[in-house]
């Protein structure tokens, strides 16, 4: 039995305050909506969705009750859909394999998970990184420019840090 994937209009982007509209969408759009607010997904799923909507059609870490998905499966396997860290992954696995995966996931302690994730920002700041003041941002950018325009004999680590800086510091 194939179930349609569904898009949830989390933020009312459609500008209509009437009943929620359900539309077909790609996994990727759901993924991006989830990655914007992973806590939202957990709370929505925990609440079993608001009234008026069908029962969860996205299987939750439970291959046993998996009723299939749009992805074709080979005999003896069923899709196992895993929501983790704002991403959705679907695997075709045998029942035994699925059970061992689920068991393994349950064994990993919070601390281990944290260590593996290499400083996951959302655990430390919630879902939003701390915003930076524009005036400071401009200053720090100017300082980087000045550092990177210095001659080739400057210490290597300074240049390396400048490159790393470009990637993650300036997010609003």
């Amino acid at each position, binding site marked *: 039995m194939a179930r349609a994937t569904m898009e*949830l209009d989390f933020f*009312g*982007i459609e500008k209509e305050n009437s009943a929620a509209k359900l539309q077909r969408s790609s996994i990727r759009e759901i993924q991006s909506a989830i990655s914007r607010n992973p806590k939202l997904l957990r709370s929505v799923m925990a609440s079993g969705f*608001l009234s008026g909507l069908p029962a969860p059609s996205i299987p939750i870490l439970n291959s046993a009750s998996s009723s299939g998905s749009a992805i074709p499966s080979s005999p003896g396997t069923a899709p196992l859909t895993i929501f983790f860290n704002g991403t959705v992954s679907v695997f075709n696995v045998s029942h035994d394999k699925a059970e061992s995966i689920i068991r393994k996931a349950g064994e990993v302690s919070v601390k281990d998970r944290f260590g593996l994730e290499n400083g996951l920002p959302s655990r430390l700041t919630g879902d939003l990184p701390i915003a930076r003041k524009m005036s400071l*941002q401009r200053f720090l950018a100017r*300082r980087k420019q000045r550092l990177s325009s210095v001659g080739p004999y400057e210490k290597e680590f300074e240049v390396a840090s400048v490159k790393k800086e470009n990637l993650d510091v300036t*997010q*609003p």
Partner: protein
Amino acid sequence: MDRTKLPRPATCGEVPDVALECVLGGYVDDPRDRAAVSLVCRRWYRIDCLTRKHVTIATCYAATPRRLRLRFPRLESLKLKGKPRAAMFNLIPEDWGGHVAPWIEEIADGLDCLKAIHLRRMIVTDGDLAVLVRARGHMLQSLKIDKCSGFSTDGLKIVSRSCRCLRTLFLEESSIAGSDDDWLREFAVNNSALESLNFYMTDLRISPQDLELLARNCRSLTSLKISECDVSDLVGLFQTAAALEEFGGGSFDDQREGDKYEKIIFPKKLCSLGLIFMGTNQMSMIFPGCAALKRLDLQYTFLSTEDHCQLIQRCPNLEVLEVRNVIGDRGLEVVAQTCKKLRRLRIERGDDDQGLEDEQGKVSQVGLSALALGCPELEYIAVYVSDITNAAFETIGTFSKKLCDFRLVLLDREERITDLPLDNGVRSLLRGCTNLRRFALYLRPGGLSDVGLGYIGEYSGNIQYMLLGNVGESDLGLLCFARGCLKLQKLELRSCCFTEHSLALAALQLPSLRYLWVQGYKASQTGRDLLAMARPYWNIEFIPPRSQIADPVNDDGRVRVECQAQILAYYSLAGKRLDCPESVVPLHPE
């Protein structure tokens, strides 16, 4: 003398209007007193209307320009604020609103006594400036265009040609188009009354000669804060501007050798200083004047932790200090030992990358506690910390009795914080600092429990403004918070876990709330839960999530990030906004 024979006043036993005007007009300035006066009776209301000198409109969409003009026809000074505070952090769409045009129209039409205007986070065009100047230029004494955008150096030239009695021109952090540098010359040539000129943190270009000319023509110039201009070119300026008490801006280059900056001698009366890009090698040039310094801005310098220690220990008269967290706990200990008169301290967030900031550049409970113990005059503390404890909050609550404004952000670089949650510490601070009017606390999940959030509500006292980030654990915490905070007028919430429904309930419950901003919350599917707070005169705006340039400062737009949805709600007598751009969705029940 027989009391019954005293002459009766002109108006039936009451104080005559003329006397009331003198008393109110001459002695009652505080806006809260004025608000109270205007509510006594119609007569007092009318007299307040005629004698009130200054009005601040905290949200420009809260009232109509016409209403302002009709109520306060003799207004002398006006302050208007547009975009939400979050605009300073690049969180508000540029086109959100806050156009000054309708206000300028009304000012031109009827506010004939206006001589001071302060626009903050608004959109101001050259055309607006032209209209303003045509109507009020001959009388304008103070023009502050503060963190605004939309105008250019052409607009500045219009101002310079017609506002010859301008004493204060403030343009700090505004985005000003145009790369010509003759706008300053126009001021220098047309004006001799200027006392304060500020174009700090702008990209305006100038020539040092024009600065000198300005200093020569404006003998009363006491405050000058400029954009980037190499300090070695300012020798002439400092020699000419003998009355200068405050200087900010300038620039240094990286020269390791050479005495390019050794010839600089600052004006004798200088007591407020902030030099951009000043480095370790140039620091000593300000040592001679350090003992006289009351204000020091090191936010935009290249100094190390040790440099801060060396510098600050020479400044025993400091009252205002602004730094980045590179100052470190060590630097704060020097402040605590040296700066006994310190009233205001701002510690901004430096670079996250350790390679670019001093490794001692972290502020924690150690530095904060020392500060509270050593500087009893503190009224304002704003700080980004890397670590914090309940005990540090308690120390502040015990010793910083004059504190009116406390803001703390817990940075997200350290995995482990010594002492969370901060429930008890926050309670102690709020109970101890009874003069607090503004309070900001930005933590991380686990930083403050629902109980702690309830404490904030319970012990908020007279706090009028709060920014809370990553506080509480659930809606229960927010609802408990909302049972308190009796005087809270403006609330900003970020990165919390509250549902729309509880946000709406809280907004309805807080008795003094007139302004609410939220980003990062549990959105419902349709946003309809927000309408639970719909009520007359309460405007609700929804800013849907959007993609924006990650680093607008030095990126051409390749890297984009998602900016999460926001809720903005405020009391308004102006009705629904008619000028919402695409990025703003007004919500009202149909």
